[in-house]
């Protein structure tokens, strides 16, 4: 194993031009597809969890093909933490607002008092809000897990 690692380091097997170019071309499309999966969860297979994992995988792919510095350039640790907290906060915040305006906790039809769209439409839209929150949280946590585990907590080089 160690010999293989040294060989890879000498010949720079991980720094192939083909892989780097392909990843650079692919990452925007992967992110677009992740957003599509989150937003289109009402009508096709998809939703917050799946789309969040795809979005997180795009950043993990950057960190795998280049190095961890490159993925920090695209999404820094601070932004990642903010997005993760925001995702969980959106979910719980939507539920709390429902309770504050007079309905039950997480009963989205109560939000009809704020903007009158109709209670059924609000239930559909409330599911969308919640999915966005779940997607953000899952993306952030997946990227966080990869960063921490692959660099054993040092957050400098990674694999």
């Amino acid at each position, binding site marked *: 194993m160690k010999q293989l690692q040294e060989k890879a380091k000498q010949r720079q097997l991980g720094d192939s031009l083909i892989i780097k170019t392909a990843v650079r071309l692919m990452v925007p499309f992967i992110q677009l597809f992740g957003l599509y999966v989150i937003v289109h969860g009402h009508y096709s*297979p998809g939703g917050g969890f799946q789309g969040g994992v795809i979005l997180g995988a795009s950043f993990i792919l950057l960190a795998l093909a280049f190095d961890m510095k490159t993925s920090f350039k695209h999404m820094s640790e601070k932004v990642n933490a903010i997005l993760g907290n925001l995702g969980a906060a959106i979910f719980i915040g939507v539920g709390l607002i429902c309770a504050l305006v007079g309905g039950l*906790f997480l009963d989205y039809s109560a939000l009809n008092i704020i903007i009158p769209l109709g209670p059924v439409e609000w239930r559909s839209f409330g*599911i969308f809000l919640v999915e966005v929150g779940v997607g953000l*949280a899952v993306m952030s946590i997946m990227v966080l897990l990869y960063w921490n*585990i692959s660099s054993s*907590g040092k*957050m400098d080089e990674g694999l």
Partner: protein
Amino acid sequence: MKTLALLATLCTGALLLYGTKDFPAWGDPQSPANSYLSPKYIEHAVQETHVPNLVTAVLGDYRGYDTMFETVVIYCAGMAVVSVLRRNRSQ
């Protein structure tokens, strides 16, 4: 030690296989899992939420509480990993 583990595994497997005798056959529409709650979801979810994807409707609306605490679980997992592994660069 290994034989003991193998024995325990085989005993558990045999017990579970004996238990499958009472389980419904594969793909039975009248099985208990398919007959009490889920027909109501299938019939009324689209009228009540306007979401054709029933999985999303149940996940986000009927079982929103479940999903919320599930998000909290993965959030806690992230916090746990950071607190177990993270070290400062100076050390």
